[in-house]
């Protein structure tokens, strides 16, 4: 489904990267969220964590130079930056569960206006696999989601209540979509619209969203570079 002016994945990732502070400890979910690393702001140095026991990793090695003992949670080969550290899985999840990570950025099937997240399983068919998602959403200081605003067949992914199996309860605090940046007021169970792409009207955005979008003050334009 094509919507006028909507952002592509690179642009959503770019927007999310703007909110990552210098020195932040960050875990990026497998796949789409991994793109955020490429848009780190000049002069800021976030430190990337991967569940399988590495802090301070950098980009992928050149093809043919992979060391398969040095991978990320997506099982892709990585490299190290100076100041990196290795540790076991219990320590890695102590970092997550213990509230030491500043931000976790994940994909989503659905996000509810009370902060509930569904991102690990569509239904009860097939092989279920959860990985570290349920730990990340309950541990990181800030849990953000990157997602298309609607599904491929146009259904809202931002909803009043998740219908897919939950990953976590009341855990998501910000959503970066292809059309908007939205804060989740978990206590009030409200979506609060912060930014929207200029080409879409408030009414059209609301019609593509499964729960009410509240506005506090003004809504900024969500503008991103060509990517």
């Amino acid at each position, binding site marked *: 489904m094509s919507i006028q002016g909507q952002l592509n994945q690179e642009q959503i990732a770019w927007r999310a990267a703007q909110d990552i502070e210098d020195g932040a400890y960050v875990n990026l979910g497998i796949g789409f969220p991994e793109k955020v690393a490429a848009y780190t702001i000049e002069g800021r140095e976030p430190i990337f964590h991967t569940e399988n026991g590495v802090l301070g990793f950098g980009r992928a090695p050149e093809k043919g130079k992979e060391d398969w003992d040095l991978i990320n949670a997506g099982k892709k080969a990585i490299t190290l930056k100076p100041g990196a550290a*290795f540790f076991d899985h*219990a320590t890695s999840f102590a970092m997550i*569960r213990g509230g030491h990570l500043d931000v976790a950025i994940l994909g989503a099937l659905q996000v509810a206006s009370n902060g509930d997240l569904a991102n690990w399983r569509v239904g009860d068919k097939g*092989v279920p*696999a959860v990985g570290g998602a*349920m*730990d990340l959403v309950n541990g990181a200081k800030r849990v953000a989601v990157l997602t298309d605003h609607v599904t491929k067949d146009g259904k809202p992914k931002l909803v009043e209540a998740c219908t897919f199996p939950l990953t*976590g309860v009341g855990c998501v605090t910000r959503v970066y979509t292809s059309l908007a940046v939205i804060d989740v007021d978990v206590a009030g169970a409200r979506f609060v619209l912060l930014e929207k792409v200029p080409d879409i009207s408030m009414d059209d955005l609301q019609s593509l969203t499964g729960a009410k979008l509240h506005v506090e003050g003004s809504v900024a334009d969500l503008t991103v570079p060509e990517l």
Partner: protein
Amino acid sequence: MNKRHATTAEAVAGISDGATVMIGGFGGSGAPIELIHALIDAGPKNLTVVNNNAGNGHVGLAAMIEHGMVAKLICSFPKSKDPKAFTERYLDGRIELELVPQGTLAERIRAGGAGIPAFYTPTAYGTELGEKKPTAEFDGKPYVQERWLKADFALIKAELGDPYGNLTYRLAARNFNPLMATAAAVTIAQVSHLVEAGGIDPEAVVTPGIFVNRLVEVSDPQQEEILNQAEARYP
């Protein structure tokens, strides 16, 4: 004190039908391929296996599953590039799956090794993976009670090992290996380099020898990823 064994076959001796076996590694990183293959040669059946994953391709854990050795798998992420071995058997009901969030899996194993029979975690609260488990509130926040995980045997992969069983690991191949070493009645480590006593700086030891029962040197160990790129099969 000498925990060394001459061959992987000798190292895995005594793992019999129905045993619970923890296998280290995260995907192929840190997977003790040679020990797994020795276990396939030995051929025990009806095993419960604890691993983060469910194997990839037709070597290592995937080959164990293909050989019908695994009755139940306890893992967090039973998907991979080529998960056919597990997927087929899971979908037609020949293998049981206990799916555990990754951090809970790590902590349950750590608890098994540390003599902590149960603990509370926020992970999985309010989800189907937290259902049917006891819950409790602490300081106004809800948590799920989780139980320790122990095993009869652990197969792990390390980098350096000395005759006392002290171990170091290579890069991110550490992952679950040090935890599983603590949680099994018999921990069996393949090491890429066996060194003499004193050959590992006491400050550099990651797994102290008290957690390790048997050692076997496997120089130049195989990497699951490389084997799969070559479409290898075991045996």
